[in-house]
């Protein structure tokens, strides 16, 4: 692995950041398609983009949020007793109700809700706490050539925490991947390079107008950062969620092939098939479900896209199950 990259910025970075806690919304073990081998993926909260098709809607907001799943509620009313804002109350029909608008996410109710009807999306964790969780599976990483992946959201929105975590992982000898959307200042992204064994880089589409409509921003910065990142020598796997009718036009795919074909260090392109099954999470967060009402892409279509990209000399991974 690129030792020179490690040497360049590592020593210069301050260690003081080690105390910055991160806002983590999930830690997934035995993650298999998030970089090489068996991995533990740490999901950080907050994202600069707002993709209509987001599968983890809890990843977008930079603050903790409350998942509310009334079907689990046993009406013990403990939440009502502790809620300081009245967001948890009892209705006229003597049923418990939740007014999200006045909730200030004090988390008090979550603590007394044993049924899991109220759950927190977003937990403050220190680097040490996350590393303790990650290192539990060290035997699996060693056997499989795996490691830790930091994903989000956009992990580098929590730059200090992410860099500290990457550094700690590198020092512990654990392979690191960062899954980034690229919508960042280059100076921030660059800081991750010395401690990242492999980048997973999300490309949402090559039509900048269309990008702006569906994702909220044009794609220039994402493309520029990808160029710069590839020049550092860091291995990069490109990840593309194929959403039919949104980012799968021949033109977009050809543009993607042209861009990636001209870059160094692109070790692979992973196509992911859009599916609309995250709807219940939107409901539990009290959000409008923005997921496009389109079918998952057909296997033949993914194969065809894969072939176009392969023609540009790229190493394409199709979804393992189609």
């Amino acid at each position, binding site marked *: 692995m690129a030792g020179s990259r490690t040497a360049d910025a590592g020593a210069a970075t301050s260690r003081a950041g080690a105390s910055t806690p991160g806002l983590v919304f999930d830690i997934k*073990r035995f993650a*298999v*398609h998030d970089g090489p081998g068996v991995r533990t993926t740490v999901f950080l909260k907050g994202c600069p983009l707002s993709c209509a098709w987001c599968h983890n809607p809890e990843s977008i907001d930079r603050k903790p949020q409350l998942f509310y799943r009334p079907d689990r509620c046993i009406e013990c009313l403990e939440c009502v007793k502790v809620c300081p804002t009245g967001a948890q109350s009892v209705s006229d029909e003597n049923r418990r109700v939740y007014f999200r608008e006045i909730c200030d996410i004090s988390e008090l109710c979550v603590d007394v809700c*044993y*049924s899991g009807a109220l759950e927190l999306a977003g937990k403050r964790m220190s680097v040490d706490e996350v590393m303790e969780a990650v290192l*539990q599976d060290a035997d699996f990483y060693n056997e*499989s050539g795996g490691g830790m992946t930091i994903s989000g959201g956009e992990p580098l929105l929590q730059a200090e925490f992410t860099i500290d975590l990457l550094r700690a992982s590198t020092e512990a000898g654990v392979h690191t991947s960062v899954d980034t959307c690229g919508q960042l200042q280059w100076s921030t992204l660059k800081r991750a390079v010395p401690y990242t064994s492999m980048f997973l880089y999300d490309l949402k589409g090559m039509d900048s107008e269309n990008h702006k409509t569906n994702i909220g921003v044009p794609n220039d910065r994402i493309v520029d950062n990808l160029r710069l990142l590839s020049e550092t020598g860091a291995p990069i796997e490109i990840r593309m969620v194929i959403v039919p009718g949104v980012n799968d036009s021949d033109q977009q795919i050809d543009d993607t092939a042209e861009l990636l074909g001209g870059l160094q260090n692109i070790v692979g392109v992973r196509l992911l098939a859009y599916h609309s099954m995250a709807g219940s999470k939107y409901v539990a967060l009290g959000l409008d479900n923005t997921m496009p009402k389109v079918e998952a892409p057909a296997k033949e279509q993914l194969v065809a896209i894969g072939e176009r990209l392969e023609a540009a000399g790229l190493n394409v991974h199709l979804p393992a199950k189609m």
Partner: protein
Amino acid sequence: MVVSTEPRRKQRAEHSFESSRDTIFRRFKNAPYSDSTGVSVSELEHLADVYLADHSGDPKILQKANIFRLVLERGRIYVDPLDWFAEKVDHGDVVRRLTLGVRGTDTPGSGMWLDEAATGALSIGTEWFDRAEKHGVSHQPRSGLDLGHIAPGWDKLLEKGLSGLLSDAVAARSALGDEITAEQAAFFKALDVVYNAAISFANRLSDFARNNAESDPENARQLDAIATALSNVPANPPHSFHEALQFMWLMHELIEMEGENVRSMGQFDRTLRPFYEADIESGAITRDHAKELIKFFWHKWYCGTGGASNGKNFVFGGQYADGSEITNDLTYLALDAYEELGTPDPKLSVRYLPGSEDRLYRRVADLIRNGHNSFVLMNDPPAVEALVKQGKTPEDARIYLPIGCYEPAVEGKEVACTMNVTVSFAKPFELALNDGVDPQTGVRLGVETGDAREFTSYDQLLNAYIAQLDHVLNKSRTHIAEAEGEWPNINPSPFISGSIDDCITDGTDISAGGARYNSVGFVGAGLANAADSLYAIKQTVFDGNRFSMTEMVEATRAGFEDREAMRLYLRNRVAKWGNNDGPVDQIARDVADHFCSVVHSFENGRGGKCQAALFTLTAAMGFGEKTGATPDGRKAGESLAPGVGASYGLDKGGVTGLVNSVTKLDFTETPNGSVLDVSLHPTAVAGEEGLHAFVSLIKTFFARDGYALQFNVLDADTLRDAQEHPENYASLQVRVTGWSVYFTTMTRKEQDIYIARIAHGG
């Protein structure tokens, strides 16, 4: 060479497996016996009754041997012209009705002599066991005698043939000279009767096949092959791969007819390897034809069960007695045959060594993820060491066979009775909270350990639990030993005994302890429920002061009625076994260590060892139904945790957490086996990366000294759909407890439990 060298009659090419499998299946179930071939089952029963009445003073072993002979001499026979293997005699379980009872009836598992003992010499023990069974304390075969978990010495059978064993018997008998006892003399006599009966029976089948080949030229090729094979085996060592398979299949059927359940068909790729290699070398068979024969051969087991259950194990991989690796071309050929068969029967086990080749891992993992989930993967180092710790030589330990599911026994030297008793870890906990009285029924089942509401320390609770558990173990041991003493009067088994060291040398039947190693298996079920319950009380009562002992006792007694918030707290907010959590894992380890050490302090009734195991099989559900609510937040009647793993849905730390926890147990102390059930979502193991991850998971478990693994790779949506549309899923196999079954053959309740477990990714 299989095919006779006589001039070819006009005949069609042999029938392919695919074109014959369904017909063979039908005819296996319903053989078109002709009356010209022998007498009916009623007539056999009548003849047997007359014989028994005339010989009631004879030793049981001779009575049984002669009934065995009678059936093989007089019963109607049949050879399916589409098949490559023959065995059919219309025996009607006339021999088994003496011992294990008639299969497929209301009372299998209990025959005349067993009934006699259960109501006579063994009545006290039987009463204890019946009550223990009824209340979910333990589960065991009738009267605590396991007649059903055994395997013959396959290598020895094939090496010597029955004639060779008869010669050994003559020599052993004369070596004993005047010292010979009446029991020994009866044993030798019985051996002579049953082996000669089997040899004549093979000749009957051979003649039948030969005659039909003459009148049925269309099917002559296979009938000729059968006729030739059976004129040689089982009397003599096989001349070919085909004859070796025919030998083993016939032995399986005859041993089962004699009254045992054959739970291992041996180390396939070692025992059959010389025959296979010789035939390939000489050009007598092609690789493809060998594969076809294996399919016909294995189809026999499927014919026997229809996929509803199985427990007939074939093992692959592993090592020779000297420690060298077995895996060879036959291993992979058989796995190909198994893939093409696509049935859950028979059951395959694969043994791994630290140096086992990657190909063996990848091939098996690939089969499993593609729905062939009838595999148990075993880790040889702890399995072998556990046997050595129980006094077996390393050479013997290395040739263990997994009996039934994952309970090892030394091939040809051990009668392991691996399922002698399964003890619930949960019921003693309920008893500890209730001073030994079952709160469900008010019946006293345990010892007095005091009013748990007044317990003031965790140690007091732990001691009460241990006292209740030990009581069950001691009772079981005592009554099992009594039953073993009666075994020669219940199920003498000369036919299988001759293949097991040192029965012939000592002139002693296995029922009288003639085997080199005589073991009794104690299986502990529901470890998670015990550990989680102990930890829950420690955390919330003695360390945390959240609940009082009185609340805990009363809430569990009442099934958490009106205390749902308490139950959810206990279930969701207290750490659980299977998540790599230090303190609760330590308790699980302590409970397991205690159980194993108590079991290993017991000698059994045949002078051998009692051996501990940690798994559940169907007992998880059976015990669960009879056990009230437990402090781990489990509701009354809910299943206990399966295998050695976490409770359903509570392995929230995922599969890696589960593996990290479970491998903290010391599996060199579970000589009678253990298993971890792992459910994986299909996407996690899809593609090349998924296969790599899957193999890494297995290797990590083994490197951490885990014992055995079995897998389900399924998603809950598929299962729900299969519940609603069973017609579309006739071939969907799932692994339940130790067995792989067709999902559509399970009860709705079993299906629901299964789906809940898969949905939790547990």
